[in-house]
Structures are given as C-alpha cells and as structure tokens.
C-alpha cells in the first residue's frame, strides 16, 4: 500500500476528531531548525464543511481493538485498515510544513495492541520530529486512555497540546456505547497532565523544559445519547475549572454505524444544537458567564431558535436596559448584539465622547438585537419597554417555511430507559438570583 492510499484512509478515519486548533503555544524556531508556533493559531484552509484545517490530522493506525458503537474505526466495522510507519508521517509533516500547507501535526491512533504500545508509537514520532529534525511547529498528540505515566510525561515534553476524548457526556452512556472504556481511564491522563502542568508552570526558570505549552482539550459527541445541554455544559465547565482545559469541543453525531444503541442512520447531524452549544461555550470562555447562568435545572436545554445570550437576557429583564455610557464592561458584554470587540471599543471611547447610535452601528454592534436592551436617548421610549414575551418573536428571524416530511424517522434514544437527568451532587446551582419580573413566554 503506498503513502497516498494510506493517507486517504487514515485522514478519513481521523476526520471525526473536531480539534484542529494550533493556538496557545509560543515556540520559536530551534537553531538551524524548521518552524515555530504562533500563539494566536493560524488556519491554513477550510474544508468544504466549513471547518478550519490547520494541522495535518491523521491516525497512525486505524486497526482498533476496541468496539465503540459510535466510532467508524471500531473492530466490527468492515473498513480498509492501514498503518503508517513513523518515517512516512514525518516526511509528510515536514514536506507539507515546508510548503506552508499546515501549521503542524495532529497525531492520533486507534488502539493497537496495548495502550502503552500505541502511546509509545505516537511519542516516538513526536520525539523524532523534535530531536532529529529539529521541528519547531505545532504538535498535537492524542493521549491513549490507560497509557503509563512515563509515556505521558514524555508526550508532554514534545507536544504542544494533548487531548483525550471524553466521547459521551455521561459515564452511564459511555459504558453503554463503549464497553471497553470508562470515565476513570479518560480522567487518568487528563488529571496527570493537569497536575504536571501546574508543577512545571509553578517556578519557571531558564532551563525549565516547556511542558505542554498549549494545554489540553477534549471532545464529546452530542446527540448520540440522551444527555441534556445542561449536563453537557456542567461537564465542560468542570473541565475548564478543574482540569484547566483550554477547549472542550462538541461534535454533532454523524451516524456512521448502524447500531441499535444509536440514532438511526438517516438521522441528520444536530448541527443547530452543536452551534448553540458552542455559543454557550463562548459565553463561558469570553463573556464571563457561568454555566448555571446559561442554563439551569428549570431550563435544561438551549433554545434552538435563539442564541443563549439573548435567552439569558430574556430570562433576566431585571438587568436591562443597560446604559452604555456608565455600565460595567462585564454588563456591556452581556447585552445581546454586542461582542467582545465592540464592548472594548465602547469602554475605551466613552470617556472621551458620548456614544451615538450611528457610532455603535459603525463599531459593529448589531442594533437590530441590541436596541431592546440598551438605554439610549435616541431610541424611542416604546422600544425601551422591556417585555420579554414581546421581544422574543422580534429577535427570532422568521423561519423559512419547510416542506413537511411524511416519512421522517422516529426519534431514537440511546439509553433503553433514560433516568431523569440529574446534575451531579454538589454541582446544583445554589439559588437563582432575583426572580424575573416576567417570565419569557415559551
């Protein structure tokens, strides 16, 4: 089998891994070496599904010994199998890098033999790239659940980022869909890296090696099992806080296997839900929202018609309207239609001049949404009256009429008898803030 065939098989096998970012690491080119890493990350191209391609994302091998229901590479699937030699991966990486096709390498693998043997092969590629070829580009290594700590430590020394996928947002579903896996084996490497990173980061001296400069990420499949959005956000907030993860990715389930434990093959991937989850994720990472503000036990799922920020604003009319001239930066960030850049612009310019409506528009504020939530002398008083049930339909763009489908497949649930969704003990929101005056209709 030649490299071209292997590349086709092993990149197609890796495409369901969402993570492709190359950010978070500042690495200068080693002396007489090739490549560096840019902390902002660089996208090199976008594939036809609109996802950014910045790394050469491949599996070292897809001959997996596990049989996870959701995975295209599972043992019981009849797909062509291939395995790269380390030299082939290194050649591809360096040649692609020289041509500026990629920002670095994303190397994952199916579990072949023992977890240790698999991890050892991944680490060997990274080590050879760094040591022999003096490669300074970005390297993302998958850590294999169950691999020994010595190998993980070595991976941390050569890679910029590692990731281990939580796969499904609850342990119950994970053991149901992937009998050979459990949460313990996933949390093992994650916690190990989190602890080592604190160790290395604590007292950085001149000779402290760079340990996993871009941190860790993880990924979970959305829509293959019955978890609520609130459970998913609770889980990812925990990852950000406890394991100090840099990113949590969501992947809307694309049916690849016919399996009675999973949604039917004709199910469309839940793209809108995935999008809303990412919006909620952004709110947590850049807009200073807590997970239990975005959703709570009473509202366990995100509104598919409305972005989560507008949803929050409609549930909390007591905070609005906001006076942009005097409000805190944090509060301005919470106004629907105002993003991070516009909020910064507003804060840095308002001390020098009054902010006018047309200035807001030129700054990039979406007045169509923001006008209901801000106080401004030029906005007619009628608009300023804040009644969530009136504003909600105005915020939702009129949906295109859709042809009804007579034969749409019935919805399938992953679990035979889904237990009532209860967030883990101790993570329950203590108390809701002030009771909203008017509850959003619907």
């Amino acid at each position, binding site marked *: 089998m030649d490299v071209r065939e292997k590349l086709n098989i092993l990149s197609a096998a890796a*495409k369901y891994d969402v993570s492709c970012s190359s950010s978070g690491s500042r690495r200068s080119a080693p002396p007489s070496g090739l490549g560096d890493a840019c902390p902002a990350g660089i*996208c090199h*191209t*976008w594939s036809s599904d*609109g*996802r950014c391609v910045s790394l050469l994302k491949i599996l070292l091998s897809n001959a997996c010994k596990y049989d996870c229901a959701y995975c295209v590479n599972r043992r019981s699937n009849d797909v062509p199998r291939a395995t790269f030699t380390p030299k082939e991966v290194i050649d591809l990486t360096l040649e692609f890098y020289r041509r500026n096709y990629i*920002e670095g390498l994303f190397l994952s693998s199916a579990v072949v033999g023992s977890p240790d043997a698999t991890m050892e092969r991944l680490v060997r590629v990274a080590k050879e790239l760094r040591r022999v070829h003096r490669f300074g580009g970005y390297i993302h290594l998958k850590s294999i659940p169950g691999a020994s700590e010595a190998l993980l430590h070595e991976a941390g020394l050569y890679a910029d980022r590692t990731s281990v996928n939580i796969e499904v947002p609850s342990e119950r579903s994970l053991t149901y869909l992937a009998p050979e896996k459990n949460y313990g084996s996933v949390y093992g490497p994650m916690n190990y890296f989190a602890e080592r990173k604190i160790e290395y980061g604590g007292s950085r001296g001149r000779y402290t090696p760079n340990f996993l400069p871009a941190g860790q990420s993880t990924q979970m499949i959305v829509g293959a099992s019955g978890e609520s959005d609130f459970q998913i956000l609770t889980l990812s907030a925990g990852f950000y806080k406890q394991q100090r993860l840099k990113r949590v990715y969501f992947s809307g389930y694309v049916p690849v296997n016919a399996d009675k434990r999973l949604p039917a093959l004709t199910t469309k991937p839940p793209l809108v839900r995935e999008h809303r989850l990412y919006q909620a994720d952004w709110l947590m990472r850049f807009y200073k929202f807590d997970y239990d503000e975005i959703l709570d036990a009473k509202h366990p799922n995100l509104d598919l018609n409305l972005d989560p920020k507008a949803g929050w604003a409609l549930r909390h009319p007591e905070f609005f309207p906001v006076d942009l001239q005097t409000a805190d930066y944090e509060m301005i960030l919470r106004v629907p239609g105002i993003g991070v850049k516009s909020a910064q612009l507003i804060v840095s*310019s308002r001390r020098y001049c009054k902010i006018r409506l047309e*200035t807001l528009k030129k700054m*990039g504020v979406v007045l169509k949404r923001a006008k209901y939530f801000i106080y401004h002398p030029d906005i007619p008083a009628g608009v300023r009256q804040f009644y969530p049930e009136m504003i909600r339909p105005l915020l939702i763009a009129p949906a295109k009429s859709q042809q009804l489908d007579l034969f749409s497949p019935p919805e399938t649930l992953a679990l035979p008898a889904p237990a009532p969704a209860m967030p883990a003990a101790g993570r329950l929101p203590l108390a809701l803030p002030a009771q909203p005056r008017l509850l959003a209709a619907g």
Partner: protein
Amino acid sequence: MSICISYDSTFDGFLSAVFEIYSQHLDVESFVPDRDAGAADDLFQQRFRVEANEDSAMRLRRAIVNYAGEDVLNLLETAFLSEEAGIEMKILAFLRKLFTGDDPNYGKNPASPEMLPLYKLAGSVRHEAGGMLGMVRFSKAPGDFYVAKIEPKYDILLLMESHFSNRFADGNWVIYDAKRRYALLHDKTGKCRVVDVPDDAALVNAINTDGYTRLWQDYYESIAIKERENPKLLRRCLPVRYWKNLPERQAARF
C-alpha cells in the same frame, strides 16, 4: 481651482505631501498615488507633484507620536496599506483635527468620526495579513527553492515578513505579490529583501504541482465530512478570491 496631489504611493511620500500641505497652506481636494497614475485627469483640478522626503516624513511621524502616540501612527500606517480610494483624505482629515489641539484627548478616542473608519480599516488589513499567513502556498522549484504567489486585496506583503523569516529561517524562498508586482526574497543566510518584479514569467512558471501537492489535495478531499457540507460557511471563511492560488481548492473545483 482646487489642488490634486500626486505622490509616489508610499506612506512616507504621503506624509511628505501632508507636510507640504501644512507648510504651503494648500487647499487639497484629492490625492493621486502613482499606482493610479494612468487614470484620466480631472479637468478642473490642478496637479501638484510632491516627492517623498525622508526628513519631512520623519518630522511628521514624530509629531503624530507626540500628539497621539505610537499606536496611532502604527494604525494610520496599517490603514494606509489598504490602498482604498480616498484613504489619504480620511487620514488627512484625522490629522487636521489632531493637530488643531482643541481636544487634548482626541488622539486617544478610537470612536471619533474620523478615527472609527480608519480603525475598522486597519482591522481588516491586519485581518487579511493574519489570514494570509496560512494561505501562502509554496511550491518547490529546482534547487530547494520555494516559490509562492499571492494576490491579496490589501498591500500586506511586508506585514508578513517577520513571520516567514522566523519560520523558514534557513530556507530559500520568495513570496510574490502578483497584484502589485513585487516580491519578498529570502535566502539561506537569513536576509530578506524586497524586489520589484517587472516580468513575472519565470516566477509563475516555477509554480508547479508535485507529488506532495497531490497528496495535499487528496488529504483536503478526505478530511471533509460529506454529511456536514456547508458551502456558505466555506465561502465566508475562505472567500472565493483566494481560491486561485490554493491548490486544494483548484482540485475541488474541477
């Protein structure tokens, strides 16, 4: 009769022109950079040629830094790289108001009516420069020489210099801006220089499709998830005007 200033299309040339406007009390209506020199003259305007003068440009730079700070000078220079029609008059309007000194905080306010468009424009120039870092595609010519051709909307080649000199410090490579016909030439010793390319036939011919280009095209095809295809999103992230110089998109089109 109003005056139309022609200058050599560089930022220093523009600053020298502003210097002349102040020292000779000119009433200027428009600027014509040399790259637009072929356009028809306006009958009712008088042409006035200003040569770039390092000294006066330097004085003006210092004045801008004194009045508004280093960042603003940088921002004006970046916005100028957009080569947008009328950008000179916009910068001039900002400078006029800045130098009146009526409002000591004028230079610090990013949302003043003169500053905001420049601020936004500089933002899009930096955005394109940042995006282009990933979209330069080298192809390997004989003798370990890497050639890339780009056609950016804004004049951003020099903004990318440090990134590529750091990354490919020991390589022979050239990035050619086919729209503006000049190139960045880097040699093995680490020296980087700007060269004009009056005849680009040799450069363009050096761009080829080799085995690794085909592997890259294959990779690009197989990494996409068919069930999630989203042409609208693709066009938003990767505007069609860049496809011409991306081997992976060329293969996708045919």
